[in-house]
């Protein structure tokens, strides 16, 4: 490493001369520390030697989307190396899962990927129902599709708002949160909670939709595309946005598959893998929707992919709203579904069912299953291992953001510091899911 020296080739503002007029000739600080003016400008040094800087981004930082710590080695503004540190939000979800009955774990699924709470609830319930060997009712299937797509929209809206703020556009943040408030209202009417919904139960849902709820959903589906169009108008062809996102943080398709990326990160690189299409669940093969796939895998492509996914989610919502069948929401299984209070209070048998379910919990057969869904972040999987007891032996969350984030060193090396923020925003991480 060469010895440190500071050389200023020319100052951007040369200063004023004695008469207060701006000076034309550049000033230079030479090795002796003397300030002189130059008759002729110096040739730019081919390489300014110096030491690399080690900076710490986080864990408390406005733009890291949670408690992420990135240690960056910088050569000027260029990132030479990036070492991410996670674990600042590790709260022992998987350990707690071994001490709770299956229905009791559902509130925990809200809190790990907290932007996609209804989606996580649905994914967990699908896995638990596979483990129990039960099949849900048609009405429940369609309601769960609605929940998953609403959840996808909610999550992408937070991504949109925070990414725009990180890159400098503040207004889309307010617009996206205003749309989120509308979804919050719908969810609150359905299940009583805005964010951490605990929407499903093993074998059904926590509650059926109230009367008139579908009108609210249709109204949302009708008016939401206008907001997407508005953000589109403001951002997609904006010179600043394009300049900051095109060519930044690209991953090739082969690298992306090998790194285990999933979701929009993978599809933006050109790989057509969507769990809803390739390993379908909840009758997704019967819905008519497209999966956007990008070409370059840079930040701009990921942005476009997610914006298009918003529009496709609205399409699915409209179709689901049309086909919602009547019928019961919960399956008719006394081992799994709590009886209605009126029966539990009057019939002995129902009271015993209620007692057994609450105190002991339903027992699945011995076995294991891995169920993956397409969460807004990627392939979200729940792996259950059961030994016949009411509490799982192992509950594993396969977090898409965890694997997506592990690729960040490759994506940021060679880019500038401000690009690190843009790339981090484009991965769409949720630290609750990463650290669990």
């Amino acid at each position: 490493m060469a010895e440190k020296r500071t050389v200023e080739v020319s100052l951007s503002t040369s200063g004023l001369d004695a008469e207060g007029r701006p000076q034309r000739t550049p000033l230079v600080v030479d090795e002796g520390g003397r300030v002189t003016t130059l008759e002729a400008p110096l040739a730019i040094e081919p390489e300014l030697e110096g030491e690399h800087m080690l900076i710490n981004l986080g864990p408390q930082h406005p733009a890291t989307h949670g408690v992420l710590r990135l240690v960056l080695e910088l050569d000027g503004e260029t990132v030479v190396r990036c070492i991410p540190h996670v674990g600042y939000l590790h709260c022992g979800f998987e350990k707690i899962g071994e001490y709770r009955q299956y229905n009791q774990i559902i509130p925990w699924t809200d809190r790990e990927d907290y932007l996609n709470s209804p989606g996580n609830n649905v994914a967990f319930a699908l896995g638990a129902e596979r483990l129990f060997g039960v099949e849900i009712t048609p009405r429940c299937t369609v309601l769960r599709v609605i929940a998953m797509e609403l959840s996808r929209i909610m999550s992408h809206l937070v991504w949109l708002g925070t990414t725009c703020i990180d890159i400098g556009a503040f207004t889309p943040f307010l617009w996206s949160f205003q749309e989120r408030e509308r979804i919050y209202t719908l969810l609150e009417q359905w299940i009583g909670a805005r964010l951490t919904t605990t929407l499903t139960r093993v074998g059904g849902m926590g509650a059926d939709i109230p009367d008139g709820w579908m009108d609210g959903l249709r109204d949302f589906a009708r008016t939401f595309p206008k907001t997407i169009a508005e953000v589109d108008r403001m951002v997609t062809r904006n010179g600043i946005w394009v300049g900051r996102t095109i060519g930044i943080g690209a991953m090739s398709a082969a690298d992306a598959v090998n790194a285990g990326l999933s979701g929009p990160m993978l599809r933006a690189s050109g790989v057509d893998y969507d769990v809803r299409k390739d390993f379908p669940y909840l009758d997704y093969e019967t819905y008519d929707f497209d999966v956007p796939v990008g070409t370059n895998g840079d930040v701009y492509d990921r942005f476009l992919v997610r914006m298009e996914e918003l529009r496709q989610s609205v399409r699915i919502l409209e179709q689901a709203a049309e086909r919602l069948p009547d019928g019961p929401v919960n399956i008719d299984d006394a081992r799994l579904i709590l009886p209605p209070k009126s029966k539990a209070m009057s019939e002995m048998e129902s009271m015993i069912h209620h007692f057994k379910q609450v105190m002991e919990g339903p027992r699945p057969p011995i076995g294991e299953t891995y169920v993956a869904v397409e969460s807004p972040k990627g392939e979200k999987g729940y792996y259950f291992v059961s030994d016949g007891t009411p509490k799982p032996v192992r509950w594993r969350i396969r977090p898409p953001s965890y694997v997506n984030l592990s690729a960040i060193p490759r994506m940021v090396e060679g880019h500038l510091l401000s690009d690190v923020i843009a790339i981090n925003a484009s991965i769409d991480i949720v630290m609750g899911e990463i650290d669990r």
Partner: protein
Amino acid sequence: MGLTARPDHQLVTVSPQSTEGWVATRLDFLVNWGRANSLWPMPFGTACCAIEFMATAASKYDLARFGMERMSFSPRQADVLICAGRVPFKLAPVLRRIWQQMLQPKWCISMGACASSGGMFDNYAVVQGIDTIIPVDVYVPGCPPRPEGLIYGIMMLQEKVKRERMSDERLRDEMEPDPTSKLYIPPSMIDELSEPFGNSVHQTRSGL
């Protein structure tokens, strides 16, 4: 559910020879009014409560009405630390460091069940209440608290700020942590604060 200030007789020690006169009380009022209505929050947001905090700052529940739209992510410029979300043990020294970097006058709102008491995370990884690490002024329960709940907590803090008196010398005292253990309240008190309905070290009877 109004917010009339309840007279608290132990709030301020006023000696009979106190020289606090009309000017001092007017000055108190002015200073406290200024502070209460322009609290700059430092959002130490970790998890779901941070999303509800962002929703509170957004258009529908607008925090700008309370003078709090200027989020200060630098602790040096912040007045109130809003700890929104669960704090695992790995994050505890960071929180402590941020609190120490904030300048007086400073307050702390513990938003949500996890920050107030560890919430549903009674396990090896989560601090059972940030009041074991930093002094908390207002606790806002909820999982996550509704924006109205957070706003209620902020208004409670504003009431608390308005009741401060300059003549109270001990108001801005900071407790220094014990140099060896870095804990600022005694370990027995931490264990007591962290208890679930049983003892925190031995598992409870129901095995939960």
